[in-house]
């Protein structure tokens, strides 16, 4: 029995590695196919219900990418990201309902307001570590929710904000029916992903990973750890706010109950399930976790039991997440790097370069 299972497992591994090799050999083909698929999805999707779920997957992917920068790359656990999501949603909702501002003006403002929230939370708390930081961010999440509930003159309290206008470009309304909202989500998602990839593949990304791996050693390498942790937090809050603003204009009605602690946990689960310190894991994680309750609808009230069991099994058998852990592929050097230079020359260039660069 066990042997049979191992054999089966092996064929799966073979199959995956074959697929991986095929992917590396035909990267362009895959990329074009993916692009075509993304463009055609609304026409393939059988109903608006499915399209709406896909858009929610997109929103949660943005949130997970944002939290992934803080938790996955920098190793700082935040349980308060629902609050930035809320700040973004409320800012955009209130600006557009009270002042009639266009979506494309309110979205950047909301993201910046959320980023300021991130700065206010991050500056005092990021000196804390581990569990203490988690509790502090959790507290912030509750504070924001209480403000939304009780500052009735502005937020309309528990009744929430309704009649939020749809996004529109030059008077052309983007709706679910004309697929405008779907394509808008794709644009925001691509923007977020591009920013995250750019950050991760730079000295900033390396500094964040160094902080995650060993904060003291990172300090001894000259990395200003508090600065980078706060910066990551602010960027993270910015994109969470962006997601919130889009959400507000998608659902068109928001109340404080949307942005509870559960939402923070959901985002964190996506990051952990998808794989800490990965980008593609965030897509996979949110696709699985967001669509799961819908797929399992036939189980009725038992679905969250199954959902929980799946999460527990996952953590037992693959704690690094689906995409996490060490990669088999090689490190990608920036194009233009030469691996094999004349070694005898390089050996003695050590000190030479040292003196040239010493003053930099």
């Amino acid at each position: 029995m066990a042997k049979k299972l191992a054999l089966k497992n092996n064929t799966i591994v073979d199959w995956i590695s074959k697929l991986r090799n095929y992917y590396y050999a035909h990267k362009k083909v895959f990329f074009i196919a993916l692009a075509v698929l993304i463009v055609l999805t609304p026409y393939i999707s059988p109903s608006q219900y499915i399209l709406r779920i896909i858009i929610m997957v997109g929103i949660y992917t943005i949130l997970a990418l944002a939290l992934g920068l803080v938790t996955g790359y920098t190793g700082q656990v935040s349980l308060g990201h629902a609050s930035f999501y809320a700040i973004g949603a409320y800012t955009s909702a209130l600006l557009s309902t009270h002042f009639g501002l266009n979506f494309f003006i309110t979205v950047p403002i909301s993201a910046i307001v959320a980023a300021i929230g991130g700065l206010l939370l991050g500056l005092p708390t990021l000196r804390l570590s581990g569990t203490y930081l988690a509790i502090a961010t959790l507290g912030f999440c509750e504070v924001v929710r209480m403000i939304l509930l009780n500052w009735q003159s502005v937020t309309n309290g528990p009744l929430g904000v309704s009649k939020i206008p749809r996004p529109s470009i030059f008077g052309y309304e983007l709706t679910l029916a004309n697929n405008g909202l779907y394509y808008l989500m794709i644009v925001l998602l691509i923007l977020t992903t591009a920013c995250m990839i750019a950050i991760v593949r730079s000295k900033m990304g390396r500094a964040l990973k160094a902080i995650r791996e060993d904060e003291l050693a990172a300090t001894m390498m000259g990395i200003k750890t508090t600065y980078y942790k706060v910066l990551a937090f602010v960027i993270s809050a910015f994109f969470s706010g962006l997601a919130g603003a889009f959400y507000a204009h998608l659902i068109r009605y928001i109340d404080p109950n949307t942005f509870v602690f559960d939402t923070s946990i959901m985002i964190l689960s996506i990051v952990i399930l998808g794989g800490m310190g990965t980008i593609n894991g965030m897509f996979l994680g949110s696709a699985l976790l967001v669509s799961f309750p819908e797929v399992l609808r036939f189980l009725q009230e038992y679905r969250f039991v199954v959902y929980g069991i799946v999460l527990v099994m996952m953590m037992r058998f693959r704690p690094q997440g689906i995409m996490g852990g060490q990669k088999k592929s090689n490190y990608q050097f920036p194009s233009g790097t030469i691996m094999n230079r004349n070694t005898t020359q390089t050996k003695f260039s050590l000190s030479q370069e040292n003196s040239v660069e010493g003053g930099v």
Partner: protein
Amino acid sequence: MAFLEVKGVSKHFGGLAAVDKVSLEVNQGEIISVIGPNGAGKTTLFNMLTGAHALTEGEIIFDGEPIHNHTPQEIVEKGLARTFQNIRLFPELRVIENVLIGMHIHTQYSFLDILFRTKKFRKIEVEKHQRAIDILDSIGLKQQVHNYAVNLPYGDQRRLEIARAISTNAKILLLDEPAAGMNPQESEELLEFIKELRDQGYTIILIEHDMNVVMNISDRIVVIDYGKKIAEGLPEDIATNKRVIEAYLGRSE
């Protein structure tokens, strides 16, 4: 004037003087070894030099500038880098990334350069990667660039730590027991490598227990016991110094 001057530094933890009024001078291009029994205060001294501990008293002058009570980040930028007694690499990062992180302080482009992948960004990234490869090549780790630090054999991890310290463009390297846990052949290779570094112009301060390494490599030796400096001199003098032998083996009754 000496390259690095340590003037009467002390570090008190509560009532305990871990390091007590230690002074030493290091000249450029020297290999100085700091030895002493366990708990003598050697690592505490290193922690003070690199800014991890604030001084209780005394001053440290590097290249004519006081560096005591600066942050660790400022001290690395001035040119003092260290390795750790119990290896502190970034375990789940690749070998090349470990070295690139060492170059963080002199990888200079702005956040906008990062976001927009400017020409400046690409040029600097290629330069730094190239240099990282060169450093790994010179230390014999080039075959491992793609590997993760945690997967390296012990000796390679120690060497990677030195590579990471070099990559900060340090002028003084503080090596905390680099030969610990190495077999005789590995420590022999390390000895050669450290000598080579000195010949290239690095100044090296070494904490080491392996007397074979210490006696072979050091230009001068400083002995610390109970936080106090008890001797300083050439290797052959230290080997016969009565107080040093007492510190290590105890007094004969």
